[in-house]
């Protein structure tokens, strides 16, 4: 046959039993192998653009949900803090308290740890507010004038800073109550109570959702990567037979996993960005009505990097799992 002579050509004098040594060093061979696996993977992915896109979309959607949850929770925390920031007490002075005592109290309050801001309300200001609240202010004003003295006490609104806990608030309240000249200390509780409920809701919702979404993300990523590389798993048997090392057999799958995982991460980032953009306006308006103007927190470069890393990890883990499910790399083919 035509090849008989050519076969001799091809052998160019070497013994057919000469053991092949990699040209160049080990490192060079290693790089060459990686290069081949990477280009093989990109070829494989680009030849199946539609199904690769579906894999990216699936992994992306799977990552989007935990990502959004994370952003939601970090924002709730931020809101928590803002709300705690606006928590505080009102210190009502005795009517009999002297101006000196009131001034001392203001200084004292300002020195108290954890206090953000102290707003003093003089009896006149208090009366003014009362009159504004009532619809018959003229009458009331007349009444006050007749009495000849302002029946309202001086008071201080004390705003605590972000880090102060409810316990601190309570302790401060009790300490202040004991001061001379202080009639009453009222803790502004409503927001705190709501906040506690809301936090608990978010926590329960969060842990339930987190677990489910994480399971979903892992399963979806694994399943879709597995599906995408399924057709390649049959090669393992042949590769093992011709003497490929386990590392050589794993390599293309690591690249497939990376390609699908990182692609999914990019997709997730795009989805999250679009989503946040959509809800930013109504969220802002809601938060403003809660007196807590706030930026959406958490969509930081670190977060994006984390999404990419998680995607990459899931993709590679999915590929490895598929690989080892298929009987490992060094199992003898049958």
């Amino acid at each position: 046959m035509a090849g008989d002579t050519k076969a001799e050509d091809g052998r160019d004098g070497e013994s057919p039993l000469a053991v092949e040594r990699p040209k160049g060093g080990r490192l060079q061979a290693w790089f060459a192998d990686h290069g081949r696996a990477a280009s093989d993977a990109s070829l494989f992915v680009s030849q199946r653009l539609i199904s690769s896109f579906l894999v990216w979309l699936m992994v992306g959607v799977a990552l989007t949900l935990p990502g959004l949850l994370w952003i939601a929770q970090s924002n709730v925390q931020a809101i928590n803090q803002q709300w705690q920031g606006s928590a505080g007490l009102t210190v009502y002075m005795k009517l009999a308290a002297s101006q000196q005592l009131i001034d001392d109290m203001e200084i004292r309050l300002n020195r108290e740890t954890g206090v953000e801001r102290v707003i003093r309300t003089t009896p006149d200001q208090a009366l003014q507010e009362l009159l504004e609240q009532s619809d018959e202010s003229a009458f009331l004003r007349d009444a006050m004038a007749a009495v000849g003295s302002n029946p309202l006490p001086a008071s201080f609104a004390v705003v605590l800073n972000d880090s102060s806990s409810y316990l601190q608030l309570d302790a401060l309240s009790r300490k202040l109550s004991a001061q001379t000249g202080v009639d009453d200390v009222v803790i502004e509780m409503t927001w705190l109570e709501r906040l506690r409920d809301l936090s608990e809701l978010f926590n329960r919702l969060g842990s339930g959702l987190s677990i489910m979404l994480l399971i979903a993300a892992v399963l979806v990523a694994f399943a879709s990567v597995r599906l995408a590389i399924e057709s390649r798993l049959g090669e393992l048997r042949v590769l093992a037979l011709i003497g490929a090392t386990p590392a050589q057999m794993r390599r293309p799958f690591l690249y497939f996993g990376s390609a699908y995982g990182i692609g999914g991460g990019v997709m997730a980032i795009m989805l999250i960005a679009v989503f946040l953009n959509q809800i930013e306006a109504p969220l802002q308006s809601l938060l403003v009505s809660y007196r807590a103007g706030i930026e959406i927190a958490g969509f930081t470069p670190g977060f994006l990097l984390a999404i990419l890393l998680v995607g990459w990890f899931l993709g590679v883990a999915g590929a490895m799992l598929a690989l080892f499910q298929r009987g490992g790399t060094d199992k003898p083919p049958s």
Partner: protein
Amino acid sequence: MARLQLQHVTRRFDNGQEGLSDVSLSIESGSMVFLTGHSGAGKSTLLKMLIGAETPTTGRVLVDGSDVSQLGPKQMPWYRRQVGIVLQDHNLLENRTVYDNVALPLRITHLSAKDIARRVRGALSTVDLSDKGGLFPKHLSTGEQQRVGIARAVVNRPRIILADEPTGNLDPYLSRQVMSLFHQFCDLGSTVLVASHDIDLIKDQGCRILHLSQGALVQDTAASSEVAT
């Protein structure tokens, strides 16, 4: 240069069937030997033992004195690179071209692209497939696929060639060409073991013939003599 030995090898499958029962044989380095026997006699099982794809239930499989089933995951690939194997089902990678399939054993040994191209072209022309290098396996006829498998087995110039029915889908002319290819490798020092049911073809080669029957070695005909039917 590679001596193959089986010492009291038995292979019992999960269902109790014995693929090989107490087979002992020794194949000299650099010789060409045929393995024959009826369908289900254990020919494929014996060849798979030699490549480490089957492990003996009892007994030892030795290549150059070292036990194949004792090779670790590090050594096995290096051993297999010395062996060219043609399986009964073609075992080509469906999504690579004929050229890339034949190049596989060279790629994993980090040969330069130029050397690979030269050798692959040589191997393909040896099996009369020079013009089909760019096709995918599914576009080949069964006999052509079988020849791609043969080209892949020899492209690496292996020290040992194990071929399982390499001519099952080839016409007599091509079958004889393949045999002469194996003879060339044998002459260059490779140890060749070919399983085949084609008695006529085997007899013409004048090589030693091992007869299996129901897993046992029943006849061992020395080189250049006639086989009893």
